[in-house]
């Protein structure tokens, strides 16, 4: 039981990333912005005006950033650019991809990318948090799309001990059904056709995993809320955190890549080490030119 306690404790620590505060803030902004459009203006006091202003400013700032950094591939109005070759647009339309897609792609450094025909790798982030929020707000303003998830979406907080355990177990099964085919049983990633790859999930922030599920970055299929419920996504993230945090019961994992790395170690360490011992066993020991004082001394 204590094992679970430890893991559960770690999950909650793990989740509080440095950007969590911003995410909450941003979510709050979007939520209030959204509410504002629904609710009657008369109902909203003057304070809301200020927020609307900042929201609009945010969109405007995002548009500026977008025009400079993204429009060369995604078009002046994020409508996407023409086909480079069959089945491959230079930059896809961003209408309707939602703030979550922007937050994921720019927040993990995948965008802006150097070569559109290649898979975007995770790399150093170019924009700061405010800029990403602004661009997300701009893209979200184009058409409805998945919003940036809040911490509550992927947190097990508020669940009882038993519910948490069930969630992790269920998350493991969902993970093995939907994710391991590409990302491997350990989340270590795997190869895809024509040089593509499913990236390693180790160390990826919960928010980005949630956003990736929602938006399906690059070639990844999406797992929209109609496909995989928010609870199911939360459970998968909880499971991933569990296997990431749990100790390696059997020793060093050798990359968690399965039998290939095991075979490599069997040959290099096992056979290599044992042949080393064999060389030592059969090697001739040092010799001397002297002879024993007593002829038969060393015999027998």
């Amino acid at each position, binding site marked *: 039981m204590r094992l679970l306690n430890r893991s559960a404790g770690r999950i909650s620590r793990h989740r509080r990333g440095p950007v969590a505060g911003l995410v909450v803030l941003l979510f709050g902004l979007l939520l209030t912005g959204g509410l504002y459009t629904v609710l009657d203006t008369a109902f909203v006091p003057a304070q809301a005006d200020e927020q609307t202003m900042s929201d609009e400013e945010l969109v405007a700032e995002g548009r500026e950033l977008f025009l400079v950094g993204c429009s060369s591939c995604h078009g002046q109005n994020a409508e996407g650019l023409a086909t480079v070759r069959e089945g491959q647009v230079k930059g896809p339309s961003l209408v309707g991809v939602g703030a979550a897609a922007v937050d994921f792609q720019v927040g993990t450094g995948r965008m802006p990318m150097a070569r559109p025909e290649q898979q975007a790798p995770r790399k150093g982030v170019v924009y700061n948090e405010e800029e990403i929020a602004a661009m997300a707000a701009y893209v979200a303003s184009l058409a409805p799309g998945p919003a940036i998830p809040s911490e509550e979406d992927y947190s097990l907080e508020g669940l009882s001990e038993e519910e948490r355990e*069930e969630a992790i*177990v269920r998350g493991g*099964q969902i993970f093995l059904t939907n994710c391991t085919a590409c990302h491997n*049983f350990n989340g270590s990633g795997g190869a895809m056709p024509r040089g593509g790859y499913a990236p390693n999930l180790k160390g990826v922030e919960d928010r980005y995993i949630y956003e990736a599920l929602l938006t399906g970055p690059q070639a990844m299929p999406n797992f929209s809320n109609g496909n995989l419920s928010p609870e199911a996504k939360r459970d998968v993230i909880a499971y991933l955190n569990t*296997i990431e945090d749990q100790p390696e*019961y059997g020793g060093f*994992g050798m990359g968690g890549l399965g039998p290939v790395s*095991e075979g490599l170690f069997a040959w290099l360490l096992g056979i290599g080490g044992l042949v080393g011992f064999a060389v030592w066993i059969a090697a001739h020991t040092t010799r001397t030119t002297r002879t024993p004082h007593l002829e038969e001394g060393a015999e027998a």
Partner: protein
Amino acid sequence: MSLDTSKVASTNGSTPATASKPSKIGGVAGWADDRLGLATAMRKNLRKVFPDHWSFMLGEIALWSFVVLLLSGVFLTLWFNPSMGEVHYEGSYDPLRGIEMSEAMASTLNISFDVRGGLLMRQMHHWAAMIFVASMMVHLLRVYFTGAHRKPRELNWVIGCLLLLLGTLEGFTGYSLPDDLLSGTGVRAADGFLKATPVVGSYMSFFLFGGEFPGDQIIPRLYIVHVLLIPGLLLGLIAAHMLLLVYHKHTQWPGPGRTEQNVVGFPMLPVYAAKAGGYFFIVFGVTAIMGGLLSINPVWKFGPYDPTKVTAGSQPDWYMGWPDGLLRIMPGWESVIFGYTISWNVMIPILIVPPLMLVVLMLLPFIEAWITGDKRDHHLLQRPRNAPTRTAVMVSLMTFYGLAWAAGGNDLLAITFDLSINQITYFMRVMIFVGPAIAFFITRRWCISLQRHDNEKLLHGYETGVIMRSAEGGYTERHLPISETSAYTLTARDRDEIYSVDGDTDANGVVAPGSRVQALRAKLSKASFGHNVQKPTAEELAEAHAHAQHDHELEAGDDHSTGHELHGSTVQSVDEPPRAR
């Protein structure tokens, strides 16, 4: 036959037949010998000679890892439950608690998490299995490269090949037992292989699985094959392998005092009993440390087998990797003839090529013996370079194996080296044919040039690195003769004889029966040995030495060089280290 009656009681009286009082060891040995008569057999073998060379210990790795497998395997059977009955897991590993799984998987998790030392034993068993098969292959390569498979040891070679096959099957049945996701995926692929068998495929699948895949029979059946049938066969064949080893005695490297008629080395008692016994502890110890430090087959991460789930990196253990690689690079050929399906895409890489390779492997000594026509016993080993064609054949087979093996890990190659699995596959489809051919030619030429190098050393000595300037200003490197020991060792090999069919017509000019076969044999013999460099004859050596001496005297006269000098027949021993043996 005369019976030694001195120790047989001549009466029914109570006087002991032996009166003398033996020493303590002698007492126990005498007691045993009185009843078992072992002294006769042991007299010959207690001081059996073992030549000292590291490569002779490779087979021992296999033997000792087999012992580790037996010991750790017995431990595992005490808890493992080979049943496919479904239970809810309620053990210590939380992320799987409450999941339905087979009892096989549940008991594997129990061994891993709730039996102290259980996970260690599981991992040791798995590492030992990987090392077992690997060491058999390394041993096989050593035997073949050094020509130890030649008469009279061909049958032991065949037994060794069977051991390799059985070891591989034993490994497959073993890693299928936990019924985790990875092993279940492997078993399902095996089901696909069976189904691809022409005519009887679906029957074989249904019989093996006791009905439709996956059924509830496969784990218990694999279990009994894994713990009884194959280990029994392995034990019997290992016993035969070692009896033949004792009967034939060890091979040895040529060298001063070592001939085809003797074997030089350390006696089994005490030196090799200690070295081999000590090596057992070392193999056991290395396995234990690997089992303790390196995680292998973490079944808890795979979860129980579920036919709807799969993981990236679904590979078999390494020794099954090469047929899997062939399967991956095979084009998708399937034909339908009279409404019946023939799955070439599965049959060729799984049902045809691997058995064929095994047969080729087993026939290698016989093919070689037929080409050379050599009927002599061989106990002195050959250096790989002195059998260039043989070495090249094995390197070419290794290249085939290695490429197929790499193809079996093409997805991991792709992500590790940023390649495309498609490109790797296309490349492998070509290389699997071209690679072995290239390897064959390179190896052969390499061996032949190494032979040339040996002859150079024999005839002109070794390169000292000392550059000399002659009076005319020309530069030469000084060569010095190698030691007599090294020189003898280099020449201690047979000259190759090329078989020819010239005499194939008898006195009446009638072509001998089977001459076409003989012509083929002659052609193969010429192709195999025609390019080899033969060792120099005694005259060539003498001439070369006389020449060197002459040069030397000239030089000595010119510049009064001091240091090394050649004195005709009494070749000075130079401190060149003898060839590593």
